[in-house]
């Protein structure tokens, strides 16, 4: 077996050293009732060739987004990732190392995490960011729980524009951790005003920008309203590329930013693993969840990095920790860091501009299709269309013509008939104008 270095001769030598007759003897503590001699009823070991054949067959049963014109978004976006990114994250020294517990031999990991924290802080306009969370949804739930700690309050106001999965994840935590949430209804047609629902029990207001329906808004006023009542503003970002083009949460007065970083450096991968971004203000640092890397000096006075403020964390604080997170999204954070550093200022801003231009072009083409109306005219790279019939059926029809048309809102809001005709459509730098024209033409056919 190719992954196992021990030979039978060596196993015998080692058992002799240990002084037991067999490996089974080492399992002497296992209750007899749980002891099984026969191997499990599963296939035997296989070589690479066979495993590759089996998995390639399964892969072939999926339709890669890149193989057809594809316009899905709703929290996961298909961007072009430079070849350098995937090359570097596979370097063994990065890929097969773990949490940098021993800083003298993990300065590589520590430095890129420090760079990651800085990049996230810069693009969100916040003071400080952590070394990553699981994903945007879990980061959002952690943000609310952090706001509860900071404000010592237990009531969160949630925007109707927050991604449904993020809402559900937060609601799940609320139910079990015992805090309350007030959720506004999702309504793409009105600009909700949450200021009214903030009271002196409110720990935070959670909004998303651009929101689930694609709308871009200015939340400065809401921030003031929240602060006036002693509450925090939590801004969620689904499409991190948008921050190259729109005003960052930090400039709107956000206290916590929870975001999904997949768009930078990470493939779709059916929704995971992705990378949660988490940023806040300096004054709240000690209430943050997750790992933090800090700068320091070594015994020779040379600059170096270490994991720091770990007294917040589970391995020190146990039940009093700010979060139970341990393993996070390190390698996805590295992909993010590499891609972001390749982009740099001009590249990141340029990429955002390109995304907006493509989406804007596409919106014009689709809005021109009879019966189709564009709901929101202010958007970044994703927008909502109202169709004359249920969007789910339209999407199914378009799949048969070889177009992945977008996400029917009903997929995420199955129990809201009023949203059944809505279609979420996203465009990125990877969509050609030919793709867009094909989409428009075929949409017209199937309507």
């Amino acid at each position, binding site marked *: 077996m*190719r*992954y196992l270095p021990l030979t039978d001769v060596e196993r015998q030598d080692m058992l002799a050293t240990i002084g037991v007759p067999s490996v089974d003897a080492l399992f002497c*503590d*296992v*209750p007899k009732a749980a002891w*099984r001699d026969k191997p*499990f009823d*599963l296939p035997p070991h296989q070589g690479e060739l066979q495993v*590759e054949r089996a998995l390639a067959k399964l*892969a072939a049963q999926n339709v*890669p987004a890149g193989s057809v014109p594809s316009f899905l978004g709703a929290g*996961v976006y298909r961007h072009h990732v430079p070849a350098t990114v995937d090359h*570097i994250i596979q370097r*063994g*020294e*990065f890929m*097969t*190392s*773990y*949490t940098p517990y021993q800083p*003298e031999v*993990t*300065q590589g990991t520590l430095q*890129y995490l420090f760079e990651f924290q*800085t990049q996230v802080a810069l693009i969100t306009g916040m003071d400080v*960011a952590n070394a*990553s969370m699981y*994903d*945007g949804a879990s980061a959002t739930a952690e943000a609310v729980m952090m706001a509860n700690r900071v404000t010592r309050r237990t009531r969160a106001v949630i925007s109707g524009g927050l991604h449904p999965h993020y809402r*559900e994840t937060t609601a799940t935590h609320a139910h079990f951790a015992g805090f309350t949430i007030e959720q506004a209804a999702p309504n793409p047609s009105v600009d909700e005003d949450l200021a009214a629902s903030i009271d002196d029990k409110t720990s935070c207001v959670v909004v998303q920008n651009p929101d689930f329906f694609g709308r*871009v808004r*200015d939340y400065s006023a809401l921030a003031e309203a929240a602060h006036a009542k002693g509450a925090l503003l939590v801004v969620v970002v689904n499409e991190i590329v948008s*921050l*190259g*083009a*729109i005003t960052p949460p930090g400039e709107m007065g956000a206290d916590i930013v929870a975001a999904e970083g997949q768009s930078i450096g990470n493939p*779709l*991968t059916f*929704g*995971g693993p*992705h990378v949660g971004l988490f940023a806040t203000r300096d004054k709240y640092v000690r209430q943050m969840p997750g790992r933090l890397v800090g700068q*320091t*000096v*070594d015994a020779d006075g040379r600059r170096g990095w270490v994991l720091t*403020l770990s007294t917040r964390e*589970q*391995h020190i*604080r146990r039940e009093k920790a700010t979060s139970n*997170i*341990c*393993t996070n999204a390190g*390698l*996805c954070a590295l992909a993010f860091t590499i891609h972001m*550093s*390749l*982009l740099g200022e*001009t590249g990141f801003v340029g990429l955002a501009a390109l995304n907006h231009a*493509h989406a804007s072009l596409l919106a014009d083409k689709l809005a021109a299709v009879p019966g189709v109306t564009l709901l929101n005219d*202010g958007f970044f790279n994703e927008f909502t269309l109202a169709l004359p019939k249920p969007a789910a059926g339209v999407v199914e029809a378009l799949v048969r013509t070889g177009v*992945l048309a977008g996400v029917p809102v009903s997929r995420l809001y199955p129990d809201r008939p009023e949203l059944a005709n809505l279609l979420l459509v996203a465009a990125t730098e990877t969509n050609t104008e030919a793709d867009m024209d094909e989409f428009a033409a075929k949409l017209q056919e199937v309507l």
Partner: protein
Amino acid sequence: MNEWSKAISNFTTDKLGVSGTYSGHRGLQIEEPLLFERDSEGRCGVDLPELPKAKNRLGAHARKGRIGLPGISEPEIVRHFTRLSQKNYAIDTGLYPLGSCTMKHNPRLNEKMARLAGFADIHPLQPVSTVQGALAVIDQLAYWLKVLTGMPAVAMSPAAGAHGELCGMMAIRAAHDARGETRNKVLVAESAHGTNPATAAACGFTVEAVPANARGRVDLAAMKAQLGPDVAAVMLTNPNTCGLFETEIREIADAVHAAGAYFYCDGANFNAIVGRVRPADLGVDVMHINLHKTFSTPHGGGGPGAGPVVLAAALAPFAPLPWVVHGKNGFEVLEKAEGDAAQAFGRLKGFHGQMGMFVRALAYMMSHGADGLRQVASDAVLNANYILASLKDDMSAPFEGPCMHEALFDDRFLKDTGVTTLDIAKALIDEGFHPMTMYFPLVVHGALLIEPTETESKATLDRFIGVLKALAAEAKEGKVEKFRAAPTLTPRRRLDETGAARQPILRWTPPKEPVRDTAE
């Protein structure tokens, strides 16, 4: 002038000082500044297609002002990260016996499979008809996990072990709620990993520690005394964090069940028994599995992971969304709490879980097969016991008898030497080995927890054992200075962690006044 020139001052103002060179580099050990110190305005590491004419719809929301990201070319980026990588120790470079972390070989085949376009380039919200292969992967992986654990159900979405704990504890609370019972206390083994109490607290439970007995196992009598109608669950790890199998685990399970509570088993150490013992046969009600440990999915720098949770029949109905089920036209995804999933307790993350990890774990399982996985556990346990047996006279083992997949030592062998567990770890670094887990579990003093895993050769273990014998001898000879100074051969020596925590510097900020350009 370019920030990297400035950055040089970070390590060569001393001139032939610490580094002994003008450049600050030392042969193949090359210093590297921060990305932000390599900035050159206008430089860029990508070339974008040109911008088509299109209506701008951002209006007043358009970003104003510079973000502050550095401009760097592709060659410099490749060099930057390559150099950083060279400052890391990794499984690929040597033994990484970090107890409780199961740092085993990560096969490259798995990386290749996860990158097939059919897996890496599919959107989670594509029509299910276009992702049947992906759902089949989830279904097959779930099948392997159920057979290996003997449990009837598995929740696939948790993103890591701690996330899986959350999933399990939420399912437990949901089950009690469904029965109209309110139980707010959770008993957690004293030796448990920090995530266990943290998770229980995150689910709104109060936590009470269960003491360990002299044999490093749960004190059954004490636990029984703690059990009561207010106890929702008991959280234990098996094999536990001392690397020991809980001999009385079935009695424990019976007592827990008798008290109307559920038995949460932390499965982080499943590698010790995979293919040999089924948690179901031990009375476990719910257990998370760290795919990034037992099933070797890489988690460089701290992640990503995946923490599927196997559930007993009583808890299965409460598993979180989404559920992948067999429908009439192939696989379907239940994303709403209705029908079979009516009692699902909610959702823990976006979409369907860590697909990238699922593909890798499945490739790993198929490669090993039933016979190979059984051998994995056997060799992991054999390697750990070989280390224990070889070192027990040189170091001090707190508990009698064979261990499972990891060997635990305490610091009694360092008594009065002035040398600490930390010092031993740092000396190992100079010897080219990654240290074991230090000071965990908390139940023994100055713990050194060594988990070699099954992918290490006898020769490597012999080398490691030989070095530890020599270091133990040196400690006893009182070579304190050597240990205090260690490591001396690494890119950085011991770092000031106290200082780092006192005035945290958690991000780069542009230097106030420009540093002198030392690039001559």
